[in-house]
């Protein structure tokens, strides 16, 4: 099943999604990079919000029956929402090169989630300054041209801002609910 995924191309995915959606495009026409990226992001951000609100925030913050910890195995705790997202993205990276995604921030607790490319910095600054807007661009990395989209990642629950404000490695401690805390970066290699 996953090997099919490995050959995924933007147009094919677009066509498949369009079959059951309101998108007017057909499989032959394909979808443009931005539409594919927007749809991928919709799935990611929905799953991420569900996990954050219905699992972590409910059980760890409201009902206090279990904690969430970055050392979830040692602490017998829930995986943090950011880790949940990153593990998914790493699993995708093991299966396909057709797209990649990551959760980054200008204020990362884990320094490996700081921006590394000039476009990532530009995109993260853009979505932090222009509330509600996404950022799109292209960049060349390792000899390959990429379509790169940056989507705002919002503090959707108390758990988000609380943990980021209290963590000893957090470079910023004044987050509030609804703030842009970082961004989801999606990349699709361009033909």
């Amino acid at each position, binding site marked *: 099943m996953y090997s099919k995924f490995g050959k995924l191309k933007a147009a094919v995915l677009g066509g498949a999604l369009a079959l059951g959606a309101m998108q007017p495009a057909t499989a032959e026409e394909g979808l443009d990079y931005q539409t594919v990226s927007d749809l991928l992001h919709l799935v990611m951000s929905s799953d991420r919000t569900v996990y954050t609100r219905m699992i972590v925030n409910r059980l760890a913050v409201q009902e206090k029956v279990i904690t969430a910890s970055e050392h979830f195995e040692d602490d017998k705790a829930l995986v943090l929402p950011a880790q949940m997202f990153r593990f998914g993205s790493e699993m995708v990276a093991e299966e396909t090169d057709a797209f990649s995604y990551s959760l980054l921030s200008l204020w*990362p607790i884990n320094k490996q989630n700081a921006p590394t490319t000039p476009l990532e910095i530009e995109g993260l600054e853009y979505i932090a300054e222009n509330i509600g807007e996404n950022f799109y661009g292209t960049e060349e*990395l390792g000899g390959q041209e990429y379509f790169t989209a940056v989507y705002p990642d919002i503090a959707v629950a108390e758990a988000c801002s609380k943990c980021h404000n209290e963590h000893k490695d957090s470079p910023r401690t004044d987050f509030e609910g609804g703030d842009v805390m970082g961004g989801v970066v999606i*990349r699709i290699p361009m033909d």
Partner: protein
Amino acid sequence: MKLNRTYLFWALWAFLTLFVAAIGARALYVSGDRTAFLPGETTGVHHQFEVACETCHTSPDFSDASKITKDLNKTCVTCHKEELKASNDSHPIKKFKNPRMAAYWEKIDARFCTSCHLEHQPEETLPGMVTLAGDFCVACHSEGEQDVRQNRESHADLGYETCASAGCHNFHDNRALYEDFLVKHGNEDWLHPEPKIAAAALARNRPRSGEDEISMYLASLDAIESARDADIEHDWAATVHAANEVGCASCHASEAETAEQIDEQWIAAPTEAVCIDCHRAASQTFALGRHGMRRHPEIAKPRKAKSALKAIGIKNPPETLVSAIETYLDDPAPPAMMSTSEARVSLHPEAMGQDVTCTTCHNPHSENVNFTAVEACLTCHNDDHSLSYKSSPHFALWSAELAGDGPAGSGVTCATCHMPQTEKGGKVLTNHNQNDTLRPNEKMIRATCMSCHGLGFAIDALADPALIANNFSGQPMRHIESIDWALKRVEQPATDANQ
């Protein structure tokens, strides 16, 4: 006539050159011994299967460089995958595949094992089979957000050659070294109040058969007449094997169902295959360690003449050619077992020439935990650490436990640390990969040391080569400051640059 002689020499030279080239090409592409082509001594234990080139070199002949690199790297994880997964790898390949890491690929391309671990480079290979200079962390952790000197006040003046050499960090396995773990266990005493290994205690406290049960068992033995031996039978009757209704024929005639078949199929010395039939988990971990790795299923089998000929374009080779090659140019295979004569660690001269198999350490008819966990090891191993064991406090604890003066699980044998036991669903499993808690030795901290010792003591002890050599007779003379720094950072968080 001078001209003719020159031509003759040219012809002879051309013939000899082609002849030598043909012998070389034959060994490379068809069959035969290829050790002459080894570009340099293989590292560490890889020598055990170095004649089976295809174990690592799987690309078809004349593949391009990027395919060769990819194929080569796939073979590393066929054997090392589980170990990396269990290590909670700090730098997993999947983390570096994202194109946003492209700038780092230029520095150290962590998408490939071979970026740091090149084989056949004996002159530049460091411990851990690292073939980069010892300060390799500098490549990525000295700039921008990743600059550790900025992120950690305590690290401001440290040299990059000390990151991975001072008992503080490993590239892959930091399970016992990560900052929050240091803080959590930072204030432990050097020795816990009631030090003991829980899984070992469980194994030692297993109920034993009484004399009644032994006599009952002896009455129902299924050995053939010529093989009867009262001592062996009595030993056997007291074992866990016997308590689990494993009889003589279970191993000596494992396929037999009737008394007649037992008679016909009886084997005086069964091979380890009968052990593996039941002890699958032990056999799997055994094949991952140095003693048993020659059994690893991923070690390439000798080349088949027919497919080798096909690969060089001879589609339908004549049967006579195939059988001639198979008769005269046999492809060498690593022996099925590791022999002590081939070991590259210090062993007793009188222990040479033994194949390492289950019964090397496990007496087949009786359980003698002291032999299996101590004496068997010391029969062969002849280094300072092994030779010092019997004068160590760990041995004193083991002697006390054997004598009934110490509680079950309080003794520390060779196997306690090198083949740690774990409890799973009430059963005790022994890790038969003797290397699993070594290289780097911090792998041992959580698996064994911390059952009895505090984290700080364990880190210091394992960083002191002299203490390791005398088998931990005394206190560590080195102190690793990682815990002090981690605790200080938690107690005074505001001093750090990124706050």
